[in-house]
């Protein structure tokens, strides 16, 4: 389903984030006339149009891309490993998450660190990746009152998603740990370590390993 986004865009609704990434791949490889850019969402792709051009041609090109996109050779996913110090001062909500989920803290950590999850899209702030889906047992609601400041590197969960705050930001997700690695640097190319489609694996580390992991990951 293609819906208008004002006169300057089209929102293409798709089944899931993978569908959005596939269409995005096709449109970026060979941008149709009148298309200025794209923004992937959870189950949609926003296509920004040249406001001086009539959208019919772009819409036809998008429909053709959807038809061919089913077979698009999306590059094989990269694997990104994120070291995390779980609990304690770095994961102030771990105990609450365990209580809400009816698990022990160690079980929460084991579930979070053993599930292979994928980057669905980025948003909210530069470098913030929405990563999912978490197993049912780990799904908890957001905080009733968001924090005004969540430290950079905080690893948090809400509903089916997990994410990492790239900078100190306000936030309503429950923080279960913290990573020492950098996730966003406007001076790097690409500026974000995580990209849509990436497979993400969280690995528990001890506080004593914090300094050894600080800074940009080696495979950025």
């Amino acid at each position, binding site marked *: 389903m293609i*819906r208008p*986004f004002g006169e300057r865009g089209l929102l293409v609704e798709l089944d899931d984030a993978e569908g959005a990434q596939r269409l995005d791949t096709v449109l970026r490889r060979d941008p149709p006339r009148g298309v200025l850019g794209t923004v992937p969402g959870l189950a949609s792709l926003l296509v920004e149009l040249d406001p001086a051009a009539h959208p019919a041609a772009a819409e036809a090109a998008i429909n053709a891309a959807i038809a061919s996109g089913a077979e698009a050779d999306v590059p094989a996913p990269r694997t990104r490993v994120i070291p995390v110090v779980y609990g304690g001062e770095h994961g102030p909500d771990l105990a609450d998450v365990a209580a809400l989920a009816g698990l022990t803290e160690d079980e929460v950590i084991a579930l979070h660190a053993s599930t292979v999850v994928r980057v669905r899209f980025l948003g*909210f702030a530069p470098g913030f990746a929405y990563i999912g889906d978490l197993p049912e047992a780990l799904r908890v609601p957001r905080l009733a009152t968001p924090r005004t400041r969540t430290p950079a590197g905080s690893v948090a969960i809400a509903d089916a998603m997990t994410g990492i705050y790239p900078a100190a930001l306000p936030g309503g997700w429950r923080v279960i740990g913290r990573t020492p690695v950098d996730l966003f640097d406007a001076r790097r190319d690409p500026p974000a370590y995580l990209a849509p489609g990436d497979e993400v694996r969280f690995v528990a580390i001890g506080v004593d390993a914090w300094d050894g992991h600080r800074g940009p990951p080696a495979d950025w």
Partner: protein
Amino acid sequence: MLEVVDPGPLASVQDVLGRRDARRHGVPFGGAADPWSARLANRLVGNPEGAALIEVVAGDARFVLEADAIVAVTGGLVATIDGVPLPPSTGRRLAAGAQLRLGSGVGLRGYLAVSGGIDVEPVLGSRATDLRTGFGGHDGRALRAGDRLRIGAAGAANAGRWLGAWPARPIRITNGPQADPDLLRALTATTWTVAPAVDRTGVRLAGGSAPGGGEVPSQGLLPGAIQVPPDGAPILMLADCPVTGGYRVPACVIGADIGSVAQLRPGDPVELVEVRDDEARGAWLRIESSLAEVEPLGAAGDDGPGWAGAHH
């Protein structure tokens, strides 16, 4: 060099290039909140439209040049040079040492362009300041008193004058992805008021409630999108809005009227009126061709015949 004597409540380096390709990395589009006024200001001093300039919020801001250059101020603030009013939409030579002041006028934001442009390094395709994350522009931050900004080489810059007019209100909207007749009716039937908190992310409206707001799976956003959260208080998004959002978007402000949204001040009344997509495209093309009608005033930026009286 351009010296910031007093930045007022908030002044920052911006442009209109946009960080289009960086949006997939979660980076906002960014840039001048009122891109039309910014583009015009650059044209009035002979710059390319995408040159970096200064966005001033609410005045009172003061600047001094260390070498003569052509300057122009556009948008909702009024300017004076050593106390003498600068005619609106007019480029003018500013002598070294003369003080340029931007004070309150009919809107929230003013744009100061200098021939040659503000010379800062582009980051992710734009010289705009991302104030929230802290990169781009001048050291990734708002301007402070005492900052000295390098000016680019101007070449043979000509001052210009523009006799055009911006679109009148009400603000025009057209269908968004979650267009819904009841929601659109509520948006257009209410006389809204701009809520106290206004920033480069967006303008929140108060004074009514649009029923049928709520959450949707996170979707891409563009400046101009109107998000309606569950509380029914619409938010008109601006240049620094997040790249994705999880609230319903029943409508979008048309591109031609985004400048009008950026000029809204807290407490201003806001009326929204629905137009068709082809009217929206027509309005865009009319402003584009109007901007091309900047008249040259000569290399010295001397008074045009119509402005001699305003200068004395």
